[in-house]
């Protein structure tokens, strides 16, 4: 069994910088901002070549919808 959340420490200066950055934006907290930015960076680093182009992906999704696997 794994816990869904864990805690890390970051420099206070960085924390304050992020607070300023997200003021007035839709991002709700420093933690959300970090999760979003780091998550996107990791995805980019891990990215494999796309299997489907846009048209192929829509075709496969439509097929899976008609088959009842997704909606």
């Amino acid at each position: 069994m794994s816990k869904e959340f864990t805690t890390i420490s970051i420099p206070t200066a960085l924390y304050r910088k992020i607070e300023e950055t997200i003021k007035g934006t839709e991002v709700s907290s420093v933690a959300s901002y970090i999760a979003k930015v780091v998550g996107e960076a990791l995805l980019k680093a891990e990215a494999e070549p796309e299997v489907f182009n846009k048209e192929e992906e829509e075709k496969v999704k439509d097929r899976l919808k008609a088959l009842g696997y997704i909606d």
Partner: protein
Amino acid sequence: MPRKLLVIGLDCAPSEIVIDRRAEFPVLDRLIGGGLHGKMRSSDPPITIPAWMSMTTGKDPGRLGLYGFRHRTGYSYDKMWIATSQAWKERAIWDVVGDHGGRSVLVSIPPSYPPRRVPGELISCFITPAQENAYTYPPQLRTEIEAKFGPYQFDVVFRTEDRDEILKEIYAMTAKRFDVIGYLLETRPWDFFMFVEIGVDRIQHAFWKYSDPEHHLYQPGNKYETAIIEYYKYVDARIGELLARAGEETAVLVVSDHGAKRMKGAFCINEWLIREGFLTLKDKPQRGASIEKTPVDWRRTKVWGWGGYYARLFFNVEGREPQGLIAPEDYEKEREAMIDRLLAVRGPNGEAWATRIIKPNEHYPEVRGDYPDLMVYFDDLFWRSAGTLGYDTLYLAENDTGPDDAVHAQEGMYILYDPLRKGSRRVDIDILDVAPTVLTTMGLPVPADMRGKVAGA
């Protein structure tokens, strides 16, 4: 060199048909009469993807990091990715066979697009976008197959209510697949041969209501009453032809990835979340709108869902989702409260439901990938989940996305016939037992990270 073993995969075949009605299928009856057989508990979730992967790698979906055909991309609200063969990170039966000098022929095991290099040959499956895509390994296998048999048919079109048309297509697809398999059995060097016939799943989803007297839309004496059973008889005869070409000492495994049962209806999970105050939309949606195409007010949304044969629920958590609402320290409390609400959901006539709920991070020994916060099997999967929106009801009598009368059952079936160790015995197994059983039957060692047992040992 390994002993030869042929796996005949019948997608969605339940033991209630294959084993309980064995007297109607002479070939399968002979295998049951000489082999281990019984129910096979499928994966959680019991869906084509990841079940076939779970079966052939001997690993559960948590370890595989795969929970269905599609997955949320990270913690985004609306980005998703479709599971393809690139999602296979774990070693499968054929990799072990290859390590020991054996060769495998693999036909249409989901997901096998794009076709990957394997120690042997491979034809991909129904997530191949179109005929024009490269769909074999090695690439030249496609030219050979098409020259002899014409274009390979991965699946049937499932967007029509014309049942006669669906029936015709299912038979045409199955006939061609068995022709191709028979050809490969005879012309290829192989030690492990495995294919999945998707027609069994398709005919059940399209015709269940015509043959199951307990289905709420069943009408006695209809013209499709025996459609499913007649198809099984056809497949039984075709299996007989394959066995004649497979070799007398070849061990045979007939197996399904999960079972089937009647659909009672579809429960509108996102409509329910709206009514319970967990999901807020910006506009009134059109009937049947997908949630990812519907503007959601994320600042006033705590939970949203995806539909299909089971429901996935996602929580909008601060520090995780871009506009998270639930504080991380409240996450478990909110999950427990949601579970209580879900378990209290009743049917349209107030009937109690045997709903099953899974917390992925607690259910699997190891949990990887993009897993949901909750997995929900409404009324033990009898009620599929409709994640689409714009309904003035929580209950739909029919599927929200296409012609479909059946849902999945947790248990599929298997028959293991070993001509060198004949003897009929009923032993129920788990899906994780299949890979160790196959490898042991072939005389190969079982990797230490395959947790399952050898059937009947």
